[in-house]
């Protein structure tokens, strides 16, 4: 059992996501930085889809009511047990009565706390991820609150030796300005050539509207190719006949402030989408904070797939290292 003494800014239960229900309008939810989330689970010997806590900006204070092992990964929000710093990216043992708290965020935006056995909440539509907008999944469909009691699953799949650590080279670093790779496409034909150029050349500032639903960016206005709007689309030049939005897709309502849609976003609507963040960089998007800077870099599908396989290779490498040294 884990007792929530203070919930932090927004702490939710997440796993790999609720996959296969996009068609009915159900976004996947799930951990936003899947790289960090997956490694947290590996470090405590869990299944790769075990439910963990996603912690945002300001960490919670949690009291453990049983002896167990945990791992904290992700951005740098330094964790402490009973006030003493503990390492991130490492298998750590905790005793019943220990309190886990966090310092102020140093870099990144989100950390993941995995506990051996996983957070035990009911699976809704095959997932334990929290989708707060509709109150589905996770702990009672919402972010944690003071006084909540989280149950922990009975056993981890494997036991990992305390002190097992991810090699430094595989721990991501997060700066305050970011290059995010996108594949241009979808309805990008709607943007003028100059605006396509401007989308890629300018430095965007992340607005305070940056959460699990999406990130909104401030910068120069973008323009659309003039046309008589097609039947059914609505009158704004940024409108299209309502269509599906890929996860990571970027739209620019009225040409002002692009929005990148993320894990809890709407699944479709009537704004022209112009590009999609590649899967490897969705992990990095999750670690961007308001007021930080982003440049979008255009890549080909093959480059996106290459980046994806590099992420997979890093995870495989860590799995191997844990198998060799962590048992």
């Amino acid at each position, binding site marked *: 059992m884990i007792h929530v003494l203070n919930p932090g800014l927004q702490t939710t239960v997440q796993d790999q996501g609720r996959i296969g229900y996009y*068609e009915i*309008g159900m976004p996947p939810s799930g951990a936003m930085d899947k790289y960090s989330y997956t490694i947290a689970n590996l470090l405590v010997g869990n299944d790769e889809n075990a439910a963990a806590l996603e912690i945002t900006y300001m960490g919670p204070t949690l009291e453990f009511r049983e002896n167990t092992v945990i791992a904290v990964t992700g951005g740098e929000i330094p964790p402490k047990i009973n006030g003493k710093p503990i390492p991130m990216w490492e298998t750590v043992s905790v005793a019943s009565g220990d309190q886990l708290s966090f310092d102020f965020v140093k870099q990144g935006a989100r950390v993941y706390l995995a506990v051996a056995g996983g957070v035990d909440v009911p699976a809704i539509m095959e997932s334990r991820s929290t989708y707060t*907008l509709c109150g589905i999944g996770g702990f009672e469909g919402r972010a944690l609150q003071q006084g909540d009691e989280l149950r922990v699953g009975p056993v981890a799949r494997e036991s990992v030796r305390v002190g097992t650590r991810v090699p430094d080279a595989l721990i991501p670093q997060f700066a305050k300005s970011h290059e995010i790779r*996108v594949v241009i496409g979808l309805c990008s034909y709607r943007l003028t050539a100059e605006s396509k150029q401007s989308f890629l050349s300018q430095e965007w500032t992340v607005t305070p509207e940056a959460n699990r639903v999406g990130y909104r960016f401030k910068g120069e206005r973008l323009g659309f190719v003039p046309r008589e709007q097609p039947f*059914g689309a609505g009158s704004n030049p940024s409108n299209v*006949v309502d269509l599906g939005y890929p996860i990571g897709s970027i739209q620019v309502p009225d040409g002002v402030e692009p929005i990148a849609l993320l894990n809890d976003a709407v699944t479709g609507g009537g704004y022209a989408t112009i590009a999609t963040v590649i899967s490897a960089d969705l992990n990095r998007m999750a670690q961007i904070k308001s007021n930080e800077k982003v440049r979008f870099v255009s890549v080909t599908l093959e480059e996106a797939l290459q980046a994806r396989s590099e992420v997979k290779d890093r995870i495989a490498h860590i799995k191997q290292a844990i198998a060799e040294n962590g048992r």
Partner: protein
Amino acid sequence: MIRYEYGGDEFVFVELAEEMSLEANFRGMAITRKLRERQLPGILDICPSNASYMIRVDPDQLHPDALIAELKNLEESVSLDDFEISARLVDVPVLFEDPWTHEALMRFRERHQDPNSTDLEYAARINGFKSKGELIEAITGFPYLVSMVGFVPGLPWCYQMVPREQQIEVPKYVRPRTFTPERAFGFGGAFAVIYPVQGAGGYQLFGIAAAPIYDREQRLPDFKDAITFPKQGDIFRYRGITMDEYESIRKQVEDGTFRYLTKEITFTPDEVTENPQRFSENVLGRLYE
């Protein structure tokens, strides 16, 4: 021209047409149904939409280019001539000009094209109707095809089955509202919708549906198999009701006894597109026979 586009490394988006039409919608339905039957490994989601569709893949199992090649084959082989849709005809009771959506739309007047009218007055005027009543008659007089589901769980985009010149079309709000009541009945572009849950929204607000289309607890019999009610291909008839009937339906919903009036129907795209008016009349006759 059909556009095949990558949505990053996990999505393929196919735009069948830039404008909305029953033909484009049926075509997307037919292609995505065939794709579903093939059960290709690596396909995670198949999302047919209004005049387009979208597929989510695991690119480690199925390369997006291999999927696009498959979709192009399907595009050539699919014919609407032998395509049949089996769906539900549904009576959907709506209270127009209700106090709840009225309160919401008045709160966001400064985000609207015409701050001095209500959404219904504005929509009636720009569509050439003499009164709100005439617009309501046009909305409720002919049924709608559920042409897409999404946005949030269960929201149905509904496209009225009437000839193009009879279609109602309205813009979305200048800036979206941050609040829309649960079950609000709205209109944007050429689409009628019901908002399943409270939240943001940009469609013109005309009324409120009496019964839910989303039931997380699955209390009502219509939600036994799923938390959402609308399915693409369903035919909805929006029926204007009085406050008395609204309250009586609300009570049935609270008791857990409410059921939508539905009939099964099988139809072909040709039956609809050749004479939408006649098809609509047949459908309504059948629903209330």
